[in-house]
């Protein structure tokens, strides 16, 4: 009887231990699951933050690029306007009245021919080009007589295999003075600014 009772107690203990172990395992499994869920949440948050940052940076750089493009375009516009202003004010090409007062929008045709000859003469070409490069940099300056006949004089051309160019045209008159036999013709200055 006593022996049987001892066996019963031993079985009960085993059963309890078994239950305890089972509970422990189930609790451990629950904990592992919770940790896995938490880890998953953390990774998700990190991924979301990274995605937000990447999207933010992408947007910001796109807007920034658009800003840069716009400011480059504006500066190119200003550059061509400045070139046109410089070309139309060169004292060595303008016509002057007897009192040395420059005539408005008037260019002396023979001064243009002289400049053209100087810019193409191998002896004077380099010095003249270097000097006018300080004014016109990467551009082409063409004086075109339209009436009575079409004549082009390109006094300066520094084509840098440009991708695009912007052009300004200024209507002018050309004075062809041969003393008493002088006359005026009409045309324009074409100022093209090259940009890469």
């Amino acid at each position, binding site marked *: 009887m006593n022996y049987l009772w001892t066996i019963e107690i031993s079985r009960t203990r085993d059963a309890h231990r078994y239950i305890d172990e089972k509970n422990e395992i189930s*609790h451990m499994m629950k*904990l592992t699951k919770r*940790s896995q869920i*938490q880890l998953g949440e*953390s990774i998700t948050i*990190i991924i979301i*933050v990274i995605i937000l*940052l990447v999207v933010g940076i992408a947007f910001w750089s796109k807007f920034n690029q658009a800003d840069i493009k716009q400011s480059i375009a504006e*500066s190119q516009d*200003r550059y061509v306007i*400045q070139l046109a*202003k*410089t070309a139309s*004010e060169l*004292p*060595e090409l303008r016509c*002057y009245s*007897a009192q*040395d007062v420059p005539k408005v929008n008037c260019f*002396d045709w*023979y*001064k243009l*021919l*002289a*400049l053209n*000859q*100087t810019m193409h003469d191998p002896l*004077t070409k380099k*010095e*003249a080009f270097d*000097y006018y*490069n*300080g*004014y016109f940099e990467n551009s082409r300056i063409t004086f075109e007589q339209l009436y009575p006949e079409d004549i082009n004089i390109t006094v300066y051309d520094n084509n840098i295999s440009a991708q695009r160019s912007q052009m300004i045209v200024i209507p002018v008159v050309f004075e062809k*003075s*041969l*003393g*008493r*036999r*002088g006359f005026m013709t009409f045309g324009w200055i074409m100022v093209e600014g090259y940009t890469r």
Partner: protein
Amino acid sequence: MIRKNKKGIIEIQFNWIFVLIAGFIIFLFIISIINSQKKQSDQTLNIDIMSLITTEIKNKQQIFNSYNEIHTTSVYDLQFSCDKDTKQAGIYIKGTEGNIELPTEVLFTTTKLSTNNIIIWTSDFSTPFTVTRFMFITSPGTAFLIYNDSANQYAKQIYYDLPANITKIYVNSFAPDISSSSILKQTKAFKNYHIICFDDDCPANKYNYLRITPSPDNGLYSYGDLAYHRAGVPTDALSKYVTKSSLFGAIFSDSRDFYECEVARAYDQMNLKGSLHLTRMKLLTDNPDIDPDCVTYFAGPQAILSDMKSLSIKDVSTLYADTNELSMDNRNLEDKGCPQIY
């Protein structure tokens, strides 16, 4: 239970450490973005200012005999340079990267200018054809003290020919030592001052000044000698000026080297433009439609233009004579119904 608590504590600590590290990284990232943006915007602002100032300077060169002011929001330190060997001039603004070249602009100024209000005055340099437009750059903080001369003529002429908005003080009573006069009080209000004097009517040796000795026969605005005197140092070699604009160039410059470098650049332009006028005259001479009488009148001016090519800064009297002769020939050609020289 103890094991469970331990695990919980470790988990909570790990979370906090994770939050701290992640937060710190995000904080660093944001700070670095702000810093790079600030740096970029500062650089953009400086580039904008530099481009504004140089564009304004270049634009002002197009306007004949003009007075202009460029206002900036804060004070900028401008440094002007002119290399006498390469004849390259440029402008540098402290805080910006690089030096902007001014290849065609001829400007006279103090080599260092610290201001938020740049004054630009232009005047043509003509010999007698327009060579270039000289630019005189100063600031309201710079005063020009013009000492009266014993002949009582040159100082007044310069005083009245300087634009009204430029700070100028006419020193009527001759005082070699300005420390004993009321002028010192006036000059203290300015960051710097230029003393202009004539012949022997200059202040004591302890001051910096520019002594002008005009040609006695042809007047102040013809040609003459210049001496940049530095305090306590014997006056170095004399420099030269020819025409009014060249004299004002000397007045606005603070050193002989800078003045002579800019004048040398102007002479190079004079040679090129003289050659252009000479080529034009040859083209006119070869033109079959031109009046043969005019061709004979061209011989004299052509010889002068050829002669002008070899002139240097020292040959001011020859340049002055050539300028007058060309100017006269130009008028004569106009009167005779011939094409003008320039």
